[in-house]
């Protein structure tokens, strides 16, 4: 891919960024702006599309084309753009409320259609812009302004949701882990199909430290399972290593000695590519505190994109029938009759 000589600052818009101090969105914005020049896409071909919410202000801060739309519908606007202009690099920015509550339907359908989009779902497990109500990913029992006695909603997991919708690329990363975030952004951009990235993001005002143990490098080795394709599912620091076994789709934790061969101990080896999503579902079921939270690419498989099939149908129809593609022929098709003077 031909590199375009652009720098990070070329992707910084002239708008003042207005997130709260300490918001995880700052880090995500910075890392996206850093990755952009490395993707080899001309800036004028990049579009950021969002809905409503704190995360959805994102396009306003990117010096690309951008469309800050209405609540929950960003995937649908992006679908129209990408189906109309497949050469564009279209990025959707959404949150747990925008993407999984009001926009859950559109997220489902964009994933199953597999347009070549990148969807960044900032998950802070709370409504920030409306000042602190529980969200569809909030933990049961969460006390919020709208749930003074604790939330009684069972939460949805973005990864399991995406897998269930037939997503071809599903990953999880962390707002403050620049290296991991940038790696995942590049992988998502390179993936031909819809890439759903759940970004664990901290809301310091309404749900501070929700992801603290995986954000903090000191506790991460015990609380996170870093997924690497072809590598065993091992986590924990030296002296406290553990692995994940998956038997009949049910995961369990097995303690490992430092010199154990994890595979010999029955620890599963990570594979992003199985056609069946069962293994990825088993990974998605790993939740704190019983299991480490997996970070990385859960699934990456290929399937024709929606827009490529649209283009193919148009090309086929033109090859077969282009001579008929004029208004005169259309208006005179079928039975006509002439009234003489």
């Amino acid at each position: 891919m031909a590199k375009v000589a652009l720098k990070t600052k070329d992707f910084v818009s002239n708008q003042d960024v207005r997130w709260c101090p300490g918001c995880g969105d700052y880090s995500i914005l910075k890392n996206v702006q850093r990755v952009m020049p490395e993707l080899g896409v001309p800036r004028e071909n990049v579009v950021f599309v969002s809905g409503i919410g704190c995360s959805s202000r994102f396009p306003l801060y990117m010096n690309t084309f951008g469309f800050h739309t209405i609540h929950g519908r960003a995937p649908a606007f992006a679908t129209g753009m990408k189906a109309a202009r497949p050469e564009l690099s279209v990025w959707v920015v959404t949150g747990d409320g925008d993407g999984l509550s009001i926009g859950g339907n559109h997220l489902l359908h964009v994933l199953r259609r597999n347009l070549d989009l990148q969807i960044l779902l900032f998950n802070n497990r709370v409504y920030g812009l409306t000042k602190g109500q529980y969200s569809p990913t909030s933990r049961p029992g969460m006390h919020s302004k709208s749930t003074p006695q604790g939330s009684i909603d069972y939460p949805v997991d973005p990864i399991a949701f995406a897998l269930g919708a037939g997503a071809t690329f599903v990953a999880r990363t962390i707002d403050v882990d620049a290296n991991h975030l940038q790696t995942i952004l590049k992988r998502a951009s390179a993936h031909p199909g819809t890439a759903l990235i759940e970004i664990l993001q901290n809301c310091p005002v309404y749900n501070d430290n929700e992801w603290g143990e995986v954000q903090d490098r000191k506790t991460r080795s015990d609380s996170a399972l870093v997924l690497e394709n072809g590598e065993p599912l091992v986590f924990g620091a030296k002296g406290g290593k553990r692995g994940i076994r998956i038997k009949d789709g049910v995961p369990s934790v097995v303690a490992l000695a430092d010199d154990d061969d994890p595979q010999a101990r029955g620890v599963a080896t990570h594979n992003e590519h199985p056609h069946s999503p069962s293994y990825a579902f088993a990974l998605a079921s790993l939740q704190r505190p019983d299991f480490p939270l997996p970070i990385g690419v859960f699934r990456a498989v290929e399937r024709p994109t929606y827009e490529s099939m649209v283009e193919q149908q148009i090309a086929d129809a033109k090859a077969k029938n282009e001579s008929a593609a004029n208004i005169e022929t259309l208006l005179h098709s079928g039975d006509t009759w002439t009234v003489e003077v």
Partner: protein
Amino acid sequence: MSTKKSVEEIERVAIRFAGDSGDGMQLTGTKFSEATALAGNDLSTFPDFPAEIRAPAGSLAGVSGFQVHFAAEDIRTPADYPDVLFAMNPAALRTNVEDLRPGGMLIINTDAFSTQNIERAGYTEDPIEPLRDRYRVVDIPLTALNRAALSELKLSTRETDRCKNFFALGLMYWLYNRPMEPTERWLRTKFTGGVLEANLRVLKAGHAFGETCELFPVSFVVPRAKIQPGVYRNITGNTALSWGIVAAGVQMQRPIFLGAYPITPASEVLHELARYRHFGIRTFQAEDEIAAVAAAIGASFAGHLGICTTSGPGFILKQEAIGLAVMTELPVVIVNIQRAGPSTGMPTKTEQADLLAALYGRNSDSPLPVLAPATPGDCFHVMIEAFAMAVKYMTPVVVLSDGYIANSSEPWLIPDVAALPRNKVELHSDPENFEPYQRDPITLARPWAVPGTKGVEHRLTGLESAAQSGNVSYLPENHQKMVSLRAAKVAGIANELPPVEVNGGDGELLVVGWGGTWGAITEAVNRARSEGLPVSSIQLRHLNPFPPNLGEVLARFRRVLVCELNTGQLWRMLRAEYLTPAELLSKVEGQPFRISEIRERIEQLLNKGDA
């Protein structure tokens, strides 16, 4: 051997086919209309069917009707009252017979009048006998005749009985001297084998039955209409609307992107456009009404001609996204093929009650142009106009069709393609001093600068944007300015609108209609004028903004009567805008106006005026 029966010439006739929704009445009516069009008559049709795909056989709810009116002269409506009713069963008789013109011909499939069917239709005794005094009743054992015609073919009784509508069609072709070839040709493209053979046979058998049996002493001929010379075709409003979309794309040299979600009575447009991939048209069946409009707006953002087609409930779901298109000033066309409501209402029945929703149904002040086609054929031209307006003024445009003109058909003089407006789109590509909300000094439109164009990268948002830069702005004076700009831009479209034409021209009373009521209003007014009544009419195509001379026209008449299929939406607008003491003729039965209803009101108002 039959002797040749005599042929009587008549000027016009209206026939209604009525039967169970599974009886094929819509197909029968459509084929009869096509043959009639090819015979050179002017015609107007009115399909009237239930929303249920197959309501219980023989039930009143399941009756489906198709009325076709054809003449040797210019006509504008499917006729108030049919001259001939073909009733396939007691339920069809019961729901339709009161419409039949006194003395009209009532053709009955007597085989369907079993005790059970008669009771199911709610009759307590044989309904036919009392009708013989009022109508010319023709009893036909249609089921038996149809079975006899197919006795040699190895078809099940069910398959055989399904052909009986084509027996009826063949009979009507004989009675009105219509050509059978177009229908035979169509059958050959549609069916093969036994089903084809059966339908061809019963069509001929029905025709032969008319010629030989004693029931019909004469057949009728309606001479060719003396209409404007040219090449004609039969067209429904939905087909014309679809073709208008195709034509707009070709004429403006931009690709069309249709976002749609299935809904009655708009789905045909999606079906039709899905067949035109060779024009480069992209059709997207979205997951819901909101996604359909959002995708269309997204495509517009990317430089395509975005459009979505829907009906009332779907239109309301789109309103928030339409508001975004108002705010971000993107060109998109939203077609609402109105149906009876509120809520799900009566999906297959017509109404004009979404006018105020189109104008005022979004949050805050959210002005946009609204257009309404007058006839099925006019749906073609209104789409070309709507797209041109959307792009020229960078605004969403709403087109209000309705269930009546969407499904009705008329002979359509195929337009001269070379004379259609061109309106090639010029996208903004100059990065020099580019600002997303810079404005054309005349139209007040902002530039259409699309992704892929270097140097014009910009962000659009539903948040209030600063004039010129488009950056988010909460400044009080900026909001005031932007609200006023959006309003002035849409109001300014009036400068390019043609003045409204007055049918008739003078008189005491002005009848005002909009959209699909044109035929009934024009016919009523013309007949009244021909008898010397001082009445004229106008039909509004532009509901926002109004034509520039509308106030002056209204002021020329002592009385104004607004006729609309709602409880007074345009009426309220005209009274508010022009302080005219307009009167209202409102109808909300899910049915179009009858000419006589308008005519009576005209006479009543003029008499009252004299008194």
